[in-house]
């Protein structure tokens, strides 16, 4: 492989399950610590110190769960699809495992976004659910996650299952821009983007900052959960490798 290396060496190194396992052993505590710290700070700030919304009162505080989970649901899908593509192109086992580890986490985030959105919708729009483009496309995202998980569990051969779900997640990628831009393309009930690289935030900075903390905290949590699931998966798939046997007998 090394002779046709167009990609950096670490990329190939990461492809080895053993190396990846050791690497994540080092990274895991950092991400776990960061996730706990950020989420605690974020939640305290959001619930206790951030000001009330002048229209919605305290009910708006659910934004601190809703927006991070909504953003994450999409990012995780993207991660999954990209890993799937890598798995197909470079036949990297680790990429397959990452993609597999992503799916349930992403599904739970999509579910959380839907639930929090629904809870929020009741006081603001007067109903739990409306058939608005963003909401609908989010629901489709959840279905895509379900489909991917169902397909994976339906197949016995996990190498093939990884390939199949990778194809499916790549095809489902078309949904991501639809979710993202649905609020711009159709005029709907739902808010348009709060976070933007180019524009100033539309909400007061003291509301916005804790949201930022929460979002970063959610990302760290995702990284932690992903690594835990990934390490578990590595051990299962490599159960006959020498290093895994040694590791298991040590415990």
């Amino acid at each position, binding site marked *: 492989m090394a002779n046709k290396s167009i990609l950096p060496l670490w990329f190939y190194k990461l492809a080895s399950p053993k190396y990846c396992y050791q690497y994540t052993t080092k990274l895991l505590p950092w991400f776990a610590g960061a996730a706990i710290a950020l989420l605690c700070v974020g939640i305290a700030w959001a619930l206790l110190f951030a000001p009330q919304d002048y229209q919605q009162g305290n009910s708006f505080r659910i934004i601190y769960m809703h927006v991070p989970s909504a953003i994450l649901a999409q990012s995780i899908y993207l991660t999954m699809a990209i890993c799937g593509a890598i798995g*197909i192109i470079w036949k990297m086992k680790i990429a397959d495992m990452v993609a597999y580890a992503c799916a349930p986490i992403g599904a739970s985030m999509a579910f959380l976004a839907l639930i929090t959105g629904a809870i929020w919708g009741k006081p603001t729009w007067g109903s739990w659910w409306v058939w608005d483009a963003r909401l*609908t496309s989010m629901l*489709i*995202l959840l*279905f*895509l996650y*379900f*489909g991917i998980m*169902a*397909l994976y569990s*339906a*197949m*016995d*051969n996990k190498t*093939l299952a990884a*390939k*199949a779900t990778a*194809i*499916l997640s*790549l*095809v*489902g990628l*078309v*949904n991501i821009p*639809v979710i993202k831009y649905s609020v711009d393309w159709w005029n709907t009930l739902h808010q348009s983007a709060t976070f933007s690289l180019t524009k100033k935030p539309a909400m007061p900075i003291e509301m916005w900052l804790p949201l930022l903390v929460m979002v970063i905290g959610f990302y760290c949590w995702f990284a932690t959960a992903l690594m835990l699931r990934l390490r578990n998966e590595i051990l299962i798939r490599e159960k006959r490798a020498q290093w895994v046997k040694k590791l298991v007998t040590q415990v």
Partner: protein
Amino acid sequence: MLRAFWAELKRDLLLSFRRRGDLLNPLLFFVMVVTLFPLGVSPAADFLAKLAPGVLWVSALLAALLSLDSLFKSDYEDGTLEQSLLSSESNYMMAMARALAHWLTTGLPLALLAPLLALMLFLPSEAVPVLVLTLLLGTPTLSFVGAIASALTVGLNKGGVLISLLVIPLYIPVLIFGASAVQNATLGLPVSAHLAILGAMLIMSVVLAPFAIAASLRMSVSS
């Protein structure tokens, strides 16, 4: 390259001609789903007219979906699928031919029959050409995208239900644009944007889907 394409297409059309019923079945299914609605919901003409675009599109979609299950199944089971994949001719063309044959035997007859059903559901007559046009643009997308799901699941001997799960999220955009174009037409609003999007999805899926179909088939066979 074209040789395999024609051979596969001819074979598929011959097979569905052999079971002549198969050609008629999607149509009859379509007719029956359309008749279920007045029965289940309400037979009032103005109410039905409002429902019509959605119901017609949803049932076209279901008709396409129902027939997906058997698209590669029998080829997989009798082993001709692996023989197709062992061909030195391009698998891309093979996949294209299969999906096209599926459309020719389900989507196309549906689109041609739609005006009659539109009449039965009291769809305003100015919306009928738009209905046919959206079906002509949309149903090939359904066939090509559906064939991917069919190819992915063919080795799993599950019923059609797993396919539905995989495919419906991907069908929803087509449904939304198709149905709302017809809805707009009943209200006299412009529909060209919708048609353009349907056309874009069509081109995308016809060009890209065969890759995914061929890859999925190779994967399904390898077990």
